[in-house]
């Protein structure tokens, strides 16, 4: 029974790999390495130990940028979502900042922090902060009035109300927001590393191209980025499923 859950995707992936190999075989001059060469590229990366170092470097930056963004955005979002006036005051700025791609901050990041970890972490922070803040503000504003009234009825002032009612009430939506934001962080880190640092998976890709057009290593890097991203996503999903956090997912609403 269980085998069926992975059997179909596995077959599908094999078919895709086959098509990929076939296309490369028919157009050898197109400079795209086939799956076989890519696999060899991945193998090639391991003995040098570089790949582990690069993965660790990327994950390290994502952890810092993402965590800082969450730690600032969640309390701020609770306050801003709760006080309508704060939201009205802040909203124009948020709406202007929102459409600016985090990558547009790259020159400023380098200006402020130089080439290095801090610049990359800053870029990830910028990319994660606004989506997280907007998620929290939205979630707070859609907390059912009964919970807030009940909290007030039991004598909670503003701060306890945020801690004991608003925060737990938004956790289900917060978890979804965290998952999406972590995805953004993983997108941003690769781009940041292409420009602002000399290590990490993003750097691996530009470096492989610059140092001798090793497109097998470029695609190998892309595959590794995909796999690590998938693992991160699965990790947050497993948090969503943990009981203390999941009340909203089991509710039949």
């Amino acid at each position, binding site marked *: 029974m269980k085998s069926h859950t992975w059997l179909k995707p596995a077959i599908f992936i094999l078919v895709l790999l086959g098509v990929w190999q076939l296309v490369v075989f028919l157009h050898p001059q197109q400079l795209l390495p086939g799956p076989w060469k890519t696999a060899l590229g991945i193998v090639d990366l391991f003995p040098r130990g570089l790949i582990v170092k690069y993965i660790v470097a990327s994950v390290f930056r994502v952890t810092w940028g993402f965590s800082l963004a969450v730690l600032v955005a969640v309390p701020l979002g609770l306050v801003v979502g709760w006080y309508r006036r704060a939201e009205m005051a802040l909203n124009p700025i948020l709406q202007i900042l929102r459409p600016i791609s985090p990558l547009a901050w790259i020159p400023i990041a380098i200006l402020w922090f130089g080439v290095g970890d801090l610049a990359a972490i800053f870029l990830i922070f910028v990319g994660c902060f606004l989506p997280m803040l907007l998620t929290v503000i939205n979630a707070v504003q859609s907390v*059912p009035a*009964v*919970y807030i*009234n*009940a909290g*007030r*009825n*039991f*004598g909670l002032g503003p701060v306890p109300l945020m801690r*004991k*009612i608003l925060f*737990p*009430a938004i*956790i289900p939506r917060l978890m979804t927001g965290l998952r999406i934001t972590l995805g953004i962080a993983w997108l941003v880190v690769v781009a940041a590393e292409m420009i602002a640092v000399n290590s990490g998976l993003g750097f691996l890709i530009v470096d492989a191209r610059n140092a001798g057009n090793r497109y097998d290593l470029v695609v190998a890097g892309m595959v590794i980025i995909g796999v690590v991203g998938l693992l991160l996503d699965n990790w947050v999903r497993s948090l969503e499923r943990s009981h203390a956090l999941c*009340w*909203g997912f*089991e*509710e*039949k609403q």
Partner: protein
Amino acid sequence: MSSSASARAVTAAEPPMPGLPIKLRTENVGMAFLRDDKTLPVLENINLEVGNGEFVCLLGPSGCGKSTLLSAMAGFLRPTSGAILIDGEIVRGADPRRIFVFQERGVFPWLTVEGNIGFGLRKLPAKERAERVGHYIQMVGLEGFEKSYPHELSGGMKQRVEVARALAVNPDVMFLDEPFGALDSITRMVMRIELLRIWQAERKTILFVTHDIDEAVQLADRVVVMSARPGRIQQIVSIDIPHPRDISSPRYLELRDGILSQIGLAHRL
């Protein structure tokens, strides 16, 4: 709602059951909401006195402002005109001495049964808190479900959690807004019996909103019949049948039919 002149609006405050000190009074309470740039009058001239320990039901057609009146009494809304006084003081906000019981929707889904019932007892030492929680869990018959989350409970059980959470902080007044409306008829009967038992044991002042005439006549010392919007007090009926009430006795049927014709009249207005 058009020919309000023909409604027999009672303007003088209706006194509570004789012999009870006054717990809550409303003085000419009026309420209007702003909707589409127009003011929508929802309550007009509500004058009511509720005695300490009295069980009063508010009964009226849907949309007549029962929930609005109850929310104003609990301090969630400010009346547009008039005043609401509890213990002689004007109500200015929510207060743990007066707990509002929302249908089962007010139970916090992120807390266990224990967590919910102990929610209002944050300031007590852990041991005393656990004792109080245990006492009320037993009172509402939820032993064995202490660690359950609300989504694991039935509607009736969630309702009991809410009632227990309210009782645990030992309020003087409880406001219940159609607390049993979402329950099946058998559970509803059981809950009424339990509520009466608790009320007789603890003697809270209870204001209970319902649009079920039988429920009102089974529970209340007095039934406040309200007219369609803008809600006014149309009549106040004292239910002079001692508990436990025989719901097939002639007096019960007489009172129920009297209110029924009042409501019928209300619908024709």
